[in-house]
């Protein structure tokens, strides 16, 4: 097992280097040029050349790559072309909001999806199952921007109670208003975005849970448990549910990158200052340093998440062994 872990960890290094090369190349091959975005549409060529040289963008691409690599290895993500601010500051501005929203969403999704999927499976083809299936597909099919705007117009404008955008009311602070007011204010701001994100992502996990449970209750050991004369409650809770949860638990590893990734659509509509908006703006402005930093963090989390999944498999499922 230890050998396996070390081997997997070592594999990550060439993988990340490979990803960074591909990332860097694609970004520089894509049409568009940060210099043209910094200058006017038709700035004189010598002006463009001067600015390009100032940013070191006139060097061959491999020189630029190695410069970037050297800088990253020193732990420096560089500075944005556009405003000269360190990339780390840009990311740290946004990351807490993305984590905050995604964390709440994830708790709600799992807290709701697991029992719902469970009941759905145990009462397959019942009215409950059909209703849940219907809403699961509806949630998946509704375009989230449309649903979000609908909520804003139908709920937000009509009620004075529910804010439509932002994270908190300007001026509401711990010092002046106390803990309770601040918490209520924050919670109110969460309601609309959390509703939209959760509805969209719950469908998958509900269905996953349902099919996993359906598979488990057909197993021989469940029949054995029932044959032993165990009450149905115990059969389900102790024997079926635990086993059915296995694939769900390993999903958590896959959720790691998602937890850190911002949703452009949700952030756009609810003016939520997360990572999604930062990355989309960086891509449009060809702000290479920010794009590279975000891509590499994403890649690292993806790799780490996969790794975590594999390890979780071993931990929760005694049938699986790595050597």
């Amino acid at each position, binding site marked *: 097992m230890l050998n396996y872990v070390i081997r997997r960890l070592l594999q990550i290094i060439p993988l990340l280097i490979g990803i960074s090369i591909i990332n860097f190349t694609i970004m520089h091959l894509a049409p568009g040029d940060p210099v043209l975005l910094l200058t006017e549409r038709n700035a004189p060529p010598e002006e463009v050349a001067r600015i390009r040289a100032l940013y070191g963008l006139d060097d061959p691409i491999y020189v630029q790559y190695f410069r970037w690599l050297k800088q990253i290895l020193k732990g420096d993500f560089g500075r944005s072309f556009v405003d000269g601010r360190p990339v780390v500051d840009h990311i740290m501005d946004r990351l807490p909001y993305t984590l905050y929203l995604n964390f709440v969403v994830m708790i709600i999704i799992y807290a709701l999806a697991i029992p719902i999927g469970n009941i759905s499976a145990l009462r397959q083809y019942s009215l409950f199952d059909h209703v849940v299936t219907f809403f699961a597909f509806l949630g998946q099919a509704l375009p989230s921007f449309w649903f979000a705007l609908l909520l804003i117009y139908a709920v937000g404008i009509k009620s004075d109670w529910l804010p439509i955008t932002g994270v908190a009311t300007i001026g509401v602070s711990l010092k002046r208003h106390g803990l309770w007011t601040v918490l209520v204010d*924050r919670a109110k701001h969460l309601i609309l975005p959390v509703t939209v994100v959760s509805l969209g992502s719950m469908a998958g996990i509900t269905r996953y849970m349902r099919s996993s449970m359906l598979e488990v209750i057909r197993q021989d050991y469940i029949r054995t448990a029932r044959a032993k004369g165990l009450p149905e409650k115990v059969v389900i809770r102790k024997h079926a549910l635990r086993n059915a949860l296995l694939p769900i638990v390993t999903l958590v590893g896959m959720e790691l990158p998602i937890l850190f990734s911002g949703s452009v659509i949700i952030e756009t509509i609810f003016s939520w200052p997360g990572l999604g908006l930062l990355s989309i703006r960086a891509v449009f402005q060809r702000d290479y340093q920010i794009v590279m930093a975000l891509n590499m963090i994403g890649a690292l989390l993806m790799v780490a998440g996969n790794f975590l999944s594999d390890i979780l498999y071993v931990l929760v499922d005694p049938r699986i062994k790595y050597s």
Partner: protein
Amino acid sequence: MRRKVGIVLLLVLVIALFVGGCTPEPEAGPEPGDERQVSGTITYGMTGDPVIFNPILYTDSPSSFVISRVYSGLVRANENLEMVGDIAKSWEFSEDGLVWTFHLRDDVRFHDGEPLTSEDVKYTYEAILHPDYTGIRATNFKAVDHIEAPDPYTVVFYLKEPFAPMLTYLSYGILPKHIFEQTSIKDMKENPANMEPIGTGPYKFVEWQRGQHLILEANEDYYGEGPYIEQVIIKFYQDEQVMLAALEKGDIDYMGSIPPDDIDRVKSEHSDRLEFVEFPTNGYTYIGLKQTHPILSDVNVRKALMYGLNRQGIVDDILQGYGTVMNSNIAPVSWAYAEGELETYGYNPEKAKQLLEEAGWVEGPDGIRVKDGQRLSFTLLTDSGSKMYESIIMIAQEDWENIGVEMKPEFLEWSVLCSQYLDVAQFEAYMLGWSLGLDPDFYIFFHSDSGVDEEGNLVGFNDVEFSNPELDELLERGRREMDQEERRKIYWEAQKIVNDQLPYVFLYTRNNVAAMDKKVKGVIWSTLGPVFPELWYIEEN
């Protein structure tokens, strides 16, 4: 299990407390002023985030909005878009237009208490002229030879050649030298004062929560009249529809541009609370025609394209009437606009057909005209991102097919359109828009020197390669002439030539409809939007 849920919830609460931070409250109880109290809050909505609060480095409009309140320049535009003094009390030009002397107010202080002197002005403009300067404004000051500050309240610009349009560029906010000299010109972007600006304007920067809001407060030591509104909050939205919803809900007091489709509805539902003001924009949408193209080089063909296109119909249908048909290249808001002097090219397909017949184009078997075996057909490029452009192009395609002209549209991604076609001046026709500066000078658009040079590089914006010696001469004179009345005459002549020769099919200029909460009084509306925000005040109902 229950304990674990508890921990998770606690975590959520802790995160909830940390994000968002705390925001300062407006200071309570403004003292009663001599005439008018400094009180109240105005909340603006804005789409997109500002980038950098540096008056010589920024390129985006949210930054510009903040800069215009925090900084002040030598001069600024008034409600008629004419330049009036701001930090400069007065100024004079030498007879030959080569020496511009500005006399500064002596009571201007930066927000950190330091007085503003001619050294700050000199520093700001020398930074732009510096070879390491990373911004985009150097070309505006190409005519400047050097700048002198003979005493603390006098600045003199020495020019290599007269260049009248430069006055509008002297409105850039003046940087505090004592703060910016800590970074080299090359690293100016990294100066922290770009994020927490210290200027001389009517409002002081308080805080900026990225992606959320920005707060400014009244500068009590402002040298001019006002400000009367105590606090300015700018809320950032990423989507126009959401910002509109925020306006309707009352979250914001001002929205600069209501989407045309929603204007009538919002007006009917909210006119008790909001004041709606319609004003034209300083820019226009056009179809550029390559002047060296074998077909489009014939001015009669270009005129036929104008007569053959129902441009008023486009304004009525696509812009819902919130726009004005353009016939030349100076927007109606400019003081140099030749009102009533231009050919209007009203929709007249018969006249268009007749012009084409006279030019030798006869109807071919498929309805498209031909001449010497060549079909009257061209390709039109445009940005793929705009629904509006798409609809306009469909109308144009149909209208022109009626007069026997084939137009083949091609939609390209913005950066591809620029880098592979427009920047290298390779196209037959394209559709885009210009937004214009305050000075009517359009040398870079249509002077023959602004086209393609011998090596094939595009020098200015004249990508259609329009060339007209008479116009060249007028544009050169317009830059040298310092007297506004004389310049007006010059640009009247110049835009008449453009109106007659048609380097573009001119389409329209858009009208904005802005909404302002009625609690805000004393708003001064220029033809481009509200100006002089330090004079407005709040009267709660």
